[in-house]
């Protein structure tokens, strides 16, 4: 579980980001999405372990996918997730400045751990 998601209410839409769906998805689509991602994780398909959030790219595993599915199957939790849902902005739309901190560090020519 990612602490920002549980501690800050404005990130309550996190289950949608984890499963890569929007609030129009039905409960069947939610289950199908969860199953699809879990299978791809088991198959170790590259890039499936990452997902986009407003605070950057995060990693997901089958535990997080399961929790996201459970949240969206609970009507109360789904309601709050839908309330806080908004489209994720594309990184390039951020007024010419890169959204990704890693890219920024490279542009500022500073060596960082991940390089």
């Amino acid at each position, binding site marked *: 579980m990612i602490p920002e998601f549980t501690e*800050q209410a404005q990130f309550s839409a996190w289950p949608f980001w984890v499963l890569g769906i929007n609030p129009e998805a039905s409960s069947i689509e939610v289950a199908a999405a969860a199953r699809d991602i879990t299978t791809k994780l088991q198959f170790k398909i590259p890039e499936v372990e990452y997902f986009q959030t407003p605070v950057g790219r995060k990693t997901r595993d089958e535990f997080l996918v399961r929790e996201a599915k459970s949240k969206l199957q609970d009507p109360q939790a789904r*309601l709050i997730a839908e309330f806080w849902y908004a489209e994720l902005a594309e990184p390039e739309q951020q007024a010419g400045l890169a959204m990704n*901190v890693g890219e920024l560090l490279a542009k500022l020519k500073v060596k960082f751990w991940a390089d």
Partner: protein
Amino acid sequence: MGGLVFIVVLIIFLIRNFTGKKGINGDQKDNVRGNYISIWVISILAWLIIRNDHPDNYLALFGLYLWLAIFTQPSIISKMWAMSAMYKGCYYLSSLCYFRNGRNLFAGRLMSSLEACHRLKSDEDKRQALIWLKSRYQKRKAKKKILSGDMVMITIIEAYLAKPDDAYYLASQLDLLKGIATASIPRCVSRYALRLGLAPALANADWDRIYACAKQWNTPAINPLAKYITALYEFHRLEKRTLAVRLRCGLWRMFYMFNPYLWKLAQQFKEAKHLSVDVESKAEVIQSLWKNSKLAELNRTNYRGCLLNTEAQKRWRLRSQQLGVWDEGEAWQKIEQTVLRTLPEESASDAIADEQAYQLMEQKYKKLHYLLQAIERRLDADEVGSGAQNFIDWLHVRALLLELATSKHFTDTAFSSNHEILWQWVADLWNVAKQHCLVHFMAGIFEPMAKQNGYTEFHALLHGLTRAEYS
């Protein structure tokens, strides 16, 4: 003969170096530069003498040429070694980089070695290298004084060890160093720290934070980028139209060549709507909350109206029926709570309305309590501890005090309940461990808290400490 003269002079230099007059804060910057120049001159003289006296002694000449190359250009050699990821060599060689690191040689060594560490291929190798560096400063600062440059490097290394690829965490740790005396921070360190702090602020387009970061690292060591950003902000946002600011702003053209990425910054400062973001759609409100919670606090009425109006309530009650929520009223209440938790009504210092928030603060308060108790036990056992360890403890205390700062109740109580331990800690660090630089830093943070809580004697003491000259 020339060689013998050279050796004798070198020995005299070494003796002078170790027994010479120290600076007011224990550093040897004045001595060091003077000695460096002296050795450079003597080395050239030795070269001339040996070349004339022993033109065929190729071995001696080779040794001398090698010595000259390393000694006169140690930072180039160090950079070459850094590119080869030879972090241990860099660490030892950087002792000679006087011009680069003269303000704080040890911090410069750590910085140089860190640059080499970044070139290592695997994460595990990097980790091991950082652990080795950590052992260096723990050993070195067991008895010796810790200076500001050391503190910055220790913070960076500890942050890398704790969360290696979290740039936000690193920036937040560097934020804890606000108030540190900056005179003895080598330029390579302050430039590196500035960039590390800038990246997250730029990612969030947080102009105020960018300015604060630039001001923090606008040190006496040359840091043009910090000067440039500070000047731009003051010119465009604070509308300072002094000559000095204008001249500094003129530097942007030079920086555009080296940092093309930042060329839009001036424009962004000009155009940014400072503290008056008006958002009308719910999506914009939410996206704004993701990016910048400070703006959210200042626009709470507007945001609240956008999220919790009557129409919204109707819509979400209907949606809760569709989803099959059992109690619509309770469902809407829960939504309201999440909004209120994000947008506190009262000023930050008094808001402990939410039980969950209170419990979190209570936990932080207890953490601080345990930490200070452990420090007290250590002091009572007459073990002040090393400079590095005290600094790390201080960082933990500072981080917790900052977290508690959102509640006046907790901050005031934390300080007043523990002010005796803090007093003893400051006293022992000053009197016993002679960690004046660290105490100066701590005093700057505690002074306003002591004043606010009415501890006049403690405040007077701290006030005196902050007025002393330290680098």
